[in-house]
């Protein structure tokens, strides 16, 4: 009796999961393995792949644009992720102080993160427009200069970072929810000991929030290397002087403009490996510092 029940549940379990097994195999596992194979070939979509061993990878090492675009993506990730995390937690801490109108402020901070990426890119091009942009309308009267933000080799890349920080609303909502789960008793105990607000934040709030921070940082690492639409729309060809040429845009151009599918696949795999390594390092590094509630 119990045996047939088990097999019935197995049967049902496999049947219910079947759509995902198919989706996983066809739309994920197959393309993943195929791109690994392609990365060792010379391949245009029109002719079949020709095996060339490690040539794509050795060519990449000598490819200046590869290093440049990879550098740009790292620069973006290394600044945008800590900055975004810092701002999101800061806003969440501010909002968590039981201020009147909390829901309104939360909505205000959250709204920008709802803006779809195409209007987002178009809007930020306009904000930082050197001639009539609103940023220069604020900068010019104070500093008496009108920087050409979008065309400046030092500034352009950073606009992408500011833009991503504008969209931290999503992360802020997560941190705010995390803060509201911190047991009030911990603060009450600290109050009895006469702890200052800063000390409470440092010794109670942040440790209690650390698992959430870790999860979000890992997800941000995975996401930031894939940022595509913003640089593609805002800075065609990575202008000025390739300073905004991101790794994912280079992969796209190599595959779909230059028709070098094998080379693009090799870059795709390098991106995958970078994400795996960074995720591993982030988890290893933070795991020691993350406070897990015993439960």
């Amino acid at each position, binding site marked *: 009796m119990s045996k047939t029940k088990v097999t019935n549940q197995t049967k049902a379990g496999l049947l219910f999961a079947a759509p995902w097994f198919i*989706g996983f195999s066809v739309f994920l596992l197959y393309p993943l393995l*195929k791109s690994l194979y392609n990365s060792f070939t010379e391949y245009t979509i029109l002719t079949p792949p020709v095996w060339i061993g490690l040539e794509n990878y050795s060519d990449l090492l000598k490819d200046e644009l590869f290093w440049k675009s990879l550098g740009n993506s790292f620069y973006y990730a290394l600044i945008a992720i800590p900055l975004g995390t810092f701002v999101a937690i800061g806003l969440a801490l501010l909002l968590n*102080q039981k201020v009147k109108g909390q829901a309104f402020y939360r909505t205000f901070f959250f709204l920008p993160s709802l803006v779809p990426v195409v209007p987002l890119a178009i809007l930020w091009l306009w904000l930082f427009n050197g001639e009539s942009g609103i940023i220069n309308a604020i900068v010019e009267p104070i500093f008496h200069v009108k920087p050409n933000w979008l065309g400046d080799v030092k500034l352009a890349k950073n606009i992408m970072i500011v833009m991503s920080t504008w969209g931290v609303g999503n992360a802020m909502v*997560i941190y705010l929810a995390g803060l509201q789960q911190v047991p009030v008793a911990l603060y009450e105990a600290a109050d009895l000991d006469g702890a200052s607000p800063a000390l409470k934040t440092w010794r109670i709030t942040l440790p209690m929030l650390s698992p959430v921070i870790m999860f979000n940082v890992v997800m941000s690492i995975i996401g930031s290397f894939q940022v595509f639409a913003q640089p593609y729309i805002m800075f065609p060809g990575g202008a000025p002087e390739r300073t905004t040429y991101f790794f994912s845009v280079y992969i796209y151009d190599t595959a779909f403009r230059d028709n070098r599918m094998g080379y693009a*696949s090799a870059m795709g795999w390098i991106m995958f490996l970078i994400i795996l390594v960074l995720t591993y390092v982030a988890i290893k590094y933070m795991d020691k510092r993350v406070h897990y509630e015993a439960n």
Partner: protein
Amino acid sequence: MAKKSLKHQNITNVALVHVVLVFLSAIFLIPLLWMISTSLKTDVQALAFPPVWVPNPPQPGNYKQAWEYGMEQLAGQAPMLIYARNSILIAILTVTGTVVSNAIVAYSFARLRWPGRDIAFAITLATMMVPFPVIMVPLFGLFKDFGWVGSFRPLWIPAWFAGAFNIFLLRQFYRTIPFELSEAAKIDGCSEWAIFQQVILPLAKPALAVVALFSFMGTWNDFLGPLLYLQDQKTFTLAVGIQAFRSQAGGAPIHLQMAASTMMVAPIIILFFFAQKQFIQGIATSGLKG
């Protein structure tokens, strides 16, 4: 006396917090207000420097102009109407597929026992780390072999086969539903499908709403997918359509770009105000249960 000064200090603190919050709110809101303001200006006012802050007089006609911009190339049909129709159609197909498939698959991972389930679930979670650029090329080749390139099919059919993030989200929710309910239904002779349909689904509605919401946002937002698979302007979605509108043939003037952008943002903002609770709770749970 001491108590009074403490109270006084609290009031200044609270006031300070509000000042900071108002200032920050301005930073977050001004870009959006600037978008709307520009969308209502004449071309001369839009480009004036120092800027004209409030359109005077407002030009709501810009929206009609943006809607119809480039109509000549499309045999007199408003391009934005075509893009919006395409975006909505793809969104309906994607959201339906995402909700149906993930609801079913998550049931298996959350409430049924089968050998290898936990390993399969771990692998499922790991797939979230696979970046799209690594599978982009073979996926394109696959869809080309299927004869799907140029149609909407590459954009919505995969949604019918579930995905790691939503399986994870729904599994978390399904597991909070008491197992006694399933047991009771089983004793009544219900099949797993009947339990899923009659016991679990009605209770899972809030979670399914969140999945629907996120998946709608995802397709409405998607730029790379349509860019890869859609070549004919008549098949463009709003995302690629507005990008083309901005960049091709000299490009539309800025006040019309902002009007078009506002039209693409507006449905999302409206949706947010109707489903605020689902948005906030959905985001919170997706980020907390790690």
